[in-house]
Each structure stands twice: as C-alpha cells, then as structure tokens.
C-alpha cells in the first residue's frame, strides 16, 4: 500500500510538471490602509497562531504589536486570484521575514539558507446580506514555500491546485490540492488522514 501511494504520488507530480503554472503578482503592503487586500490580510493573519512562536498569534511578538497596539507593520505581500472559479477573487497573502533583521520570526530556513515563508489563501465566505466580518473569511495555511504558483487548468473540488515552491529557482515544488472533506489544502505527497 505504501509503495502504491508512493508511485501514485510520483505519477501525480509528473502529471503536474507537464502542465503550465501561472505566477502571482504581489504587492508589498506598507500599512493596513494601502489596499483592501492589505487590510484583510493583516487583520485576518493577526488572529492566527504563528507556529514558529509558541502560543503567540502572528505579529504579537513584542516587535510588531505590543500590548495590542501596532508599532511596526510586518512585511505582508498580497496577490489576488480567483481560485474556485466563482468570479470572486481569493486573496493570497505571504508574510516575509523583514530582510536581515527579522530572520526566523515567520519563515523556516533550509540547510542552504533558503527561506520558506508562510503563505495563506484567504477566501471570503461572508453570506450575502449578512453583516460582513473577518470571522467569515477562511484562511488556508500556512503553506511554507519560496513562492506559490497556480495551476492554470487543474481544479479539484472546484479549487485550483497550487504549487508550493521549495527552492529559489522553482524547480522543486509540492503540489497543494483542495480536499472537500477536510476543507483544507494539503500536500498530495502527504494526503490528509482518512
């Protein structure tokens, strides 16, 4: 069974390598007020736990937010793309370590010092005619990678598959696929638990 899974995964990766991928075009946010995407990304991400900072939410690290007050805006990149084909954009947000001075706060580093930074897919699930709130935005992630690429013609359960690049020249990547049952993106080489 183990070998079958391995072969299946390998075949899937090969299949995906023959398909085109679309790069994302990111904006670097300077403050929550830059764009709507910056606002949503900042306010949503600060409600999520940072796996690299035990028991702390993103940006609640004594550097960016101190006593609930924003003192230093983090490096957040945002891009928009319609991943589920419903005509409305999903927001792809990426948090970077702030150049050399903030190394390791958000990103993981490989042995050759390649930064794998957290990426999130944020989807608006607010109901029509209801009061809109961040709580109704679903955040998939963090997906640690050097960058996210979109599959242009591959949709599983309505969602576009993603490439989570693992090196700086984009030759190695994990394929992230949406799973309807768990309502999460998962790495197809490591399927979600049944």
């Amino acid at each position: 069974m183990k070998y079958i899974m391995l072969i299946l995964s390998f075949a899937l990766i090969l299949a995906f390598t023959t398909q085109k991928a679309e790069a994302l075009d990111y904006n670097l946010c300077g403050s929550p007020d830059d764009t709507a995407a910056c606002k949503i990304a900042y306010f949503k991400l600060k409600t999520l736990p940072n796996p690299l900072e035990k028991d702390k939410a993103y940006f609640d690290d004594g550097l960016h937010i101190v006593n609930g007050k924003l003192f230093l805006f983090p490096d957040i990149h945002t891009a928009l793309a319609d991943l589920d084909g419903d005509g409305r954009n999903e927001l792809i947000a990426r948090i970077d370590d702030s150049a050399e001075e903030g190394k390791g706060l958000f990103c993981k580093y490989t042995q050759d010092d390649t930064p794998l930074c957290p990426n999130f897919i944020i989807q608006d699930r607010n109901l029509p005619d209801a009061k809109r709130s961040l709580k109704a935005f679903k955040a998939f992630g963090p997906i640690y990678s050097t960058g996210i690429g979109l599959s242009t013609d591959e949709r599983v359960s309505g969602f576009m598959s993603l490439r989570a690049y693992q090196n700086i020249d984009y030759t190695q990547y994990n394929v992230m696929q949406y799973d309807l049952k768990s309502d999460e993106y998962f790495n197809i080489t490591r399927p979600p638990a049944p």
Partner: protein
Amino acid sequence: MKNLAVFLLIFGSVFTGTQQTMAQTMCDGGPVNIEKPLNRVTSNMGPRKTRINGASSNHKGTDYSTRDYGGVGTPAKGPPEGCVNVYGGKKTPYVRGYGNIAKFDCGNGITIQYAHLDGADAYDPNTNQVRTGDTGVGVAHLDYIIAHNGKTLDAQCIVGTVDNSKGAYFYGDSVKKYFRDDIVNPDLNQCPMGGKIDICDADNIAALREQSDRARGAGASSVTSGPTAGTLIAGTGSSSGAGSTVIQPYYPPTSPSSSGIVSRPTNCSGSTCIETQMIATAQGTFVRSSKAKSYKEFWSHDATQCQPPTKTNVDVLRQRANNDGIGYIEEYEDAFCLNQGCTYIKPKGNAKIGECKK
C-alpha cells in the same frame, strides 16, 4: 480641616504632576531635533534583493556601524525626551531575528526602535543610552527604525545622518581621523523637504509616509513569485486572473505641479481639510484644491487627531473596497482609526459606526 487642606494640596500636586508626566510626549514642546544614534550608516532603509528569484524584501531600518567604536557594548544615543520605553524601565526583550530590542513610544503614533542590542537590560534611562550588541541576525551593528503608526519612515531624513558607507577607512587606531561628519549626504537631498526635518510636524510625517510608499512602489511593491519561463506572468497593474485587479498605492507628487496646487484626494480627516477638485496627471489622478494657496497646504490635513469614521468615510471605504474586488468588512473601521494612531471602539446598541480613541 487644616490637615484635610494640606492633604488635598499635596495630593493635588502629586496627581497633577503625575498626569503631566504621563501626558508629556516628544512633540508637546514644539519642534524636536532627533539626534542620530551613531555616525556611520552601513545600510539604508528600503527594498533589497533577496535570494528569492524576482523578489525583494523591505529593509525597515537604517543600519549603523558599531565596529568603528569597538563593536559590542558601544553606547548609542537614546530617544528624545518624552519617549517612553514600551517594555518599561531598562528592559530590552529578545525577539527572534532582531535580537534584543528597545522600543519607545513617543506619542502622536511615532515609535523609535533599536535592534540587536546587548542583552535584556540594554537601555539605561539615567544616561538615555542603549548598549548596542550583536544579538539576532548579523554581525555587531545597530538597527534603527522610526515608524509612524506602524509604517517605517526614512530615519536619515529625520536624524540627518551622514551616510559615508562608501568610504572604506574605519578601522584601527586612526579611526577618528576618518570620521567624515562634514560630508553632505546626497540622499538627504532626496528627503521630502530636502534635508533633515522636524518629525513633530504632521506635514513632514505625511510627506515621509508618501516617500515610503513611493520607495516601495519603485522597487519592491510588485513581486512576482513562481516560475519564470514558459509561464504566464501578469504585469504590474494588469489583470492576473478572472476579475482580479492589482491595486497600486496612491503616490502624490513631491512638489506642486506647474499646472496648479494639488492636495490629497482622500483621508481628509482633520478639521483643516480643504475643498478639492479632481485633476489627472501623468502620475495618476489627484485632487486640486480650490482654496489652498501654498504648497504647505498640500499637506494641511491634520493626521494626528482621532476622528471617527463618518458615514461619508464609510461610503468611501465601501466604494474603494468594491473597486478592490474584495468587498467591505467591518474591520475597515478599525483600520480607519489605526491610521490616525487611534484604537477603534466598536459601536454599542443601534449605533452603526464606532469611535476612534487615543
């Protein structure tokens, strides 16, 4: 009765004194001259290339060399009077990457931060100096950040640092001989007001914030992530998917246009806001004031007051949100207050819009 009067007098004095101390901020005494923490800059604020293909990241601070003075343990000038250590006393806690940091709240949304300090108590309130170190990432140096409501500003335009980083003669016994404090940093000419400025002037803050936007727009605003060959890469400002729009930040011109005086089109939140009309320029659409008489008035809105979002503001936010293709959310009102250095107080009862409070 006499005792009561004495008690009230003493209590009153103490209370008033405490209040004054707590309320005193950096800008309460008028213009402020922030002194540079050290002399030699080795790295400026702004976008830098990273190892990520096609990407850059933002160096938020200004790096100062401490090696000229002996490296770890070198004292650097602390913040101006009226700034408060947000961690209390001499505390400088450790943050991964940044090492030990000192962070000062100077009021009016202005903060000053020192990173890579030498240990957890590297601020001396008595001498108002920080002890630089090599904690966090990198060799011994000082990382110095001035921010306004979370947005970093170019510290060199505020402290007027002489940037002689391209000089290469800084070590050994003859170090002092090579200090070049007399050099005029050409970069300071690029500052919004053409040189060192008073940070307590709201006009200057606004100008520096816009400069920060432009710097990111020129070098790091647009970052393409993903494969580079044989793939579809959307250009900046164009569509990158069904219905998607890349929103560019608003960049006003740095000087009055020859065709007239311009003013800010949005976020006109202070009492000094002026009536405007839209004009289109090569840099985008701006608003020309029908009342402004000088360039000074270009920045005449008061960004430091806490104005609650009004129905009109909310309508503007809604419109902008719809243009962004994502839609309006309640939290925009949080951001509206945050942008003025205030906290959003959620509405109670039937009230639809809350308040901003310091």
